[in-house]
């Protein structure tokens, strides 16, 4: 069964085409990597999957429901780790999770149990009552992952989840995500710029460039097709070596600035 179905999906901002007529599917239980240079359309696609943006054209089915027609059904089924921070800094780790649990209507008893369990898993149980603004970047990321999993989603979207994390934290995160994928059969859909991450983790990979999907398949298949030795080489061969400009809105700049201040 395909848990994500995309048909002729297009998103236009004024005259700029961010996502250009893409179609693909992800089957339930799969770990799927969505790769592409900056500005290729990854985040825009994920935003359309997660009801944050309306597609200009085409159709999406997430767990059988259309995010445009039945946003609430879709929202109940996924968890998401956004590319940039999305925690409330003025609340504690526990309060952030509690807030999320209430929003997703997780019954109190289950909620409390799961919060304790997840805090232990991401090794933040000792900091449960600290304000998030006192956390390091890696700790915040771990907390966001715990939060994304709190309501037991069928799919988890991770938009560059390991950006700016050290190898230890990265490894730790991936082993946890893998574990959860195997134990609970959660579908994992992630984007990343670390090719070895995609190579190691993903069952299947799609590469998007300039809003179009340029290649799709297992890592082995992509390497074979491009006659390259590593996924990184395959990626470069498919998308070219030119450095991309990302069309940043003022708000993205501000977020980036804040990230600098926080360090």
């Amino acid at each position: 069964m395909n848990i994500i179905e995309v048909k002729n999906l297009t998103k236009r901002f004024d005259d700029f085409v961010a996502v250009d007529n893409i179609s693909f599917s992800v089957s339930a239980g799969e770990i799927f990597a969505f790769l592409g240079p900056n500005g290729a359309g990854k985040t825009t696609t994920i935003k359309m999957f997660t009801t944050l943006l309306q597609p200009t054209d085409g159709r999406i089915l997430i767990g059988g429901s259309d995010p445009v027609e039945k946003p609430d059904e879709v929202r109940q089924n996924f968890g998401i780790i956004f590319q940039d921070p999305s925690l409330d800094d003025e609340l504690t780790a526990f309060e952030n999770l509690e807030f999320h649990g209430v929003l997703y209507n997780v019954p109190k008893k289950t909620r409390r149990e799961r919060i304790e369990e997840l805090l232990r898993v991401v090794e933040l149980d000792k900091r449960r009552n600290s304000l998030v603004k006192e956390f390091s970047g890696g700790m915040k990321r771990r907390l966001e992952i715990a939060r994304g999993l709190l309501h037991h989603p069928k799919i988890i979207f991770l938009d560059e989840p390991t950006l700016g994390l050290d190898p230890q934290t990265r490894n730790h995160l991936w082993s946890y995500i893998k574990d959860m994928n195997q134990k609970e059969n959660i579908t994992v859909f992630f984007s990343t710029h670390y090719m070895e991450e995609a190579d190691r983790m993903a069952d299947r990979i799609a590469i998007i460039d300039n809003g179009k999907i340029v290649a799709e398949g297992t890592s082995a298949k992509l390497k074979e097709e491009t006659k390259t030795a590593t996924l990184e080489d395959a990626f470069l061969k498919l998308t070219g070596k030119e450095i991309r400009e990302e069309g940043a809105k003022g708000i993205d700049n501000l977020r980036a600035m804040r990230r600098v201040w926080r360090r």
Partner: protein
Amino acid sequence: MEKIEQYLKVTYILWLRQLKRYYRSRPRMLGSLAQPILFLVALGFGLGPIYQKAGGGNYIQFIAPGIIAMSIIFTAMFSGLEVIYDRQFGFLKETLVAPVPRWTIMLGRTMGGATVATAQGIVVFLISLLVGFRPDNFITAPVALIFMALIAILFTAFGTAIASRMEDMQAFPIVINFLIMPLFFLSGALFPLEGLPRAIEVIVNLDPLTYGVDGIRGILVNQVHFTLHEDLLVLFILAAIILAVGSYMFSKVEV
């Protein structure tokens, strides 16, 4: 039924979040008291003698309700800033992908902001007692809370609605100030509404805050321009309309 229970819980948790954030930010609490105190003291004592000579009676008695309303409208409108903050610092997305109708989020935010604004109004009321303000009747004085809460809800919803359409953190305070100033100065908070020039009178009658000030003043010192029923009706209808429009605007937010 189950759905309603869930919506109430969502509204509650958003309300609670706003209160916690407010409680944890002492500078904000104290800072937002400075302006009303200044107005109360400077205008109350500065213009008091002239007002007295003109036969208006005790000016502190007259403006204290207006200053209470002022502290509420400021806090309420500026609570929209939190939406812009949440948008810029990413937390807004967390609430926007949640499987609940957007209006519950708008409602929770509005109630949280309105509670903070009403609390601020109560603090200003207590301070005005120190400056010499005396309500006619301490037993009926709490009824003024109804009017305070109504203007708090009305203007929090208004501020939130505007914020849902703005991304610019710098522009928001400027726009809000631009709106608050006329709303406040033309509300009858500072001067009696009797015998105004026709043009001013029309504007004053169109200003929602006028009805809030009139209601609070009516309860606290028994001076009304309209009737308390009229005040209540106008505020109630306006608050309902703005909440509905604001919810609609908030439901269209994209990040």
